[in-house]
């Protein structure tokens, strides 16, 4: 490290690694992990999100989980929460659908309307 600019580069990278502790995230992915969600493969869905996101080096996305969401007929259910936009809820998710959502919605900013089961708060 020789200059402040070098330090800044390290800082930006390190802040990304610490983003779970309240850093800047553009999109929050919340996977419903109720008993029925897990039975329908919610863990696989979550794992695929984690893999896809780290493979693509998407640094401003955060994956987290929540309990029962009361949409048991559509499990696994996933919310995508984006700063300044209405929440999008995807239902009946599986690993293939996850891959599509990552490419379309998270990378290209286009909601995959076929999988959407609800929008808004």
């Amino acid at each position: 490290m020789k200059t402040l600019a070098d330090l800044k580069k390290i800082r930006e990278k390190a802040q990304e690694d610490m983003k779970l502790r309240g850093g800047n995230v553009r999109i929050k992915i919340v996977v419903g992990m109720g008993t029925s969600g897990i039975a329908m493969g919610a863990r696989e869905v979550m794992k695929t999100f984690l893999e896809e996101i780290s493979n693509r080096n998407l640094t401003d996305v955060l994956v987290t989980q929540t309990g029962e969401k009361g949409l048991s007929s559509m499990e696994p259910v996933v919310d995508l929460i984006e700063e300044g936009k209405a929440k999008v809820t995807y239902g009946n998710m599986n690993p293939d659908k996850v891959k599509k959502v990552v490419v379309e919605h998270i990378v290209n900013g286009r909601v995959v309307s076929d999988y959407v089961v609800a929008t808004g708060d």
Partner: protein
Amino acid sequence: MSLKRIDLLICCGSGCVSAGALKIKDRFHEVLAEKGISTEINIIETGCMGPCDYGPVMVIYPEGIFYKHVTPEDVEEIVSEHFIKGRPVQRLMLQDEDKVISVQKEVPFYQKQVKVALANCGYIDPESLDEYIATGGYEALGTVLTELDPQKAIDVVKQSGLRGRGGGGFPTHIKWQLVHDVQADQKYIICNGDEGDPGAFMDRSLLEGDPHRILEGMMLAAFSIGASKGFFYIRAEYPLAIKRIKQAIEQAKEAGLMGDKIFGSDFCFDAEVRTGAGAFVCGEEMALIQSLQGERGNPTPKPPYPATKGLWGKPTVVNNVETLANLPTIFLKGADWFASMGTATSKGTKVFALTGDIKNTGLVEVPMGITLRELIFEVGGGMTGGHKFKAVQLGGPSGGCLTQEHLDVPVDYESLKERGAMMGSGGVIVMNDQKCMVNVAKFFTEFCVDESCGKCPPCRIGLKHMHGILERITSGQGKEGDIEELQRLGETICKLSLCGLGQSAPNPVLSTIRYFRDEYEAHIRDRACQTKVCPDLLHFNIDKSRCIGCSLCARKCPVNCISGSREEKYTIAQIDCIKCGNCQDVCPVKAIDRVPGLHEDVVKHTEEALQKLGREEE
């Protein structure tokens, strides 16, 4: 690295570790591996999070969920419920008046706190340079080295109003200026991490929880005064602090943050760790310098001050850990920002180690000028066990006691000093109405007697004499004039001692005489300890109306002085009682009380014995 979805921060400060934090951490590693989700969760060992009384504590991000009193048995449930199903475990959360508090920033303990020195402590991984950099670490150093010259840096500290946090409260910039202005081929900066006060752990927590901050603070000081070499003096009882600082130095060197031409400037710097033997007097700066040089840690007369003749005769600044910890933020956020907190004479925040009879004991950082009431009742959560507040002892073993009437006094250097207490390094011991103040004074005096280096007679002999008088008073042998003698001795010792230890050691006695004189008088004149602490000034009494005649007490009395029967109930032959308290402990119906003062039989017996003695002498 694969993407993590949870940051699990486990407090591994000394309090939580002694409550079992490391076992919990190991258990998490096991359970996460069993469930196959190790790659999704980041386990981080942090320094003290503050509320040590709730230990082991942990915080789970992204939500910031706070769990307290976690045991290894809880780990399985946390993983399967919280980490897998997304359902945080309510029973491990803090309850406040029927309300469950889930996230850390809503815990009442943190509400009045402002964290500057402690900003990263309990929040980052202290062993990771990157995490320190992520919070803005080393930016102050880079900016100061490239944009300011030493004089300008000192001016910033002057404008901030920062005063030393090690006890004396001496303005930091004045000490720096003196060394800056001296011409010398070599100057030194020393970080004082001795922390000899019993019960204090703020410096230790800072060194363990955020070592790079202290190192950066040291380099900022070194640049300002023109030092190229620094020493961390840390007591050997703090092995983790020593390890973390050594590691931080290595990391900084490797990253090019230490060594030659730092940030491309002309500033070169190197630091080393030296361990101390753990004597209270070695925290005194002259004794510390002697000890660092490998000599006996004895204070030396001042002047010469370390600013002119310090380590190996060279100009030296000795700064406390917390003083250094404040520097990066002062340079980053500006002198005015820092000076906007606190009172006219005491700027910024202060870290306190809260202990004693309060609900939230632990490590806190509050703005200077907060009242004692806020500190004790809001941050500290008030008294435990329904007891009443009696006194608060501030400033370490040679600090002073304040009382009820001082609760609205602002906590700053001058306000405390005016009233006979002091800021010291920040130990705060809160006492309830069960405490005997004469005994408290005796305890602290005893500590200072043991820790006096013995170099000067007022401290060595005078303190011992004071302790002897206190010993007499608490054992019922006090005489008229003892109080005045204690005051006279105390004042003399303060005036004539060479170093700060002797100069302040009488404070606990002088301040308790000032505010609790009636207690001293009751001990001496009435031979009574109203708080029922001093065994020689109380007696045990069996209340016949409550006694069920079970004879347990009689069987447990080591001197067989309890007699009676099931019908007659039991009584104590007071003259023989040695006040061991066994009977009270075993009584199943709590029929035995401690009563202040000597029993009339004992008084009568003593008087008769004295008279007889007098007659024989005639």
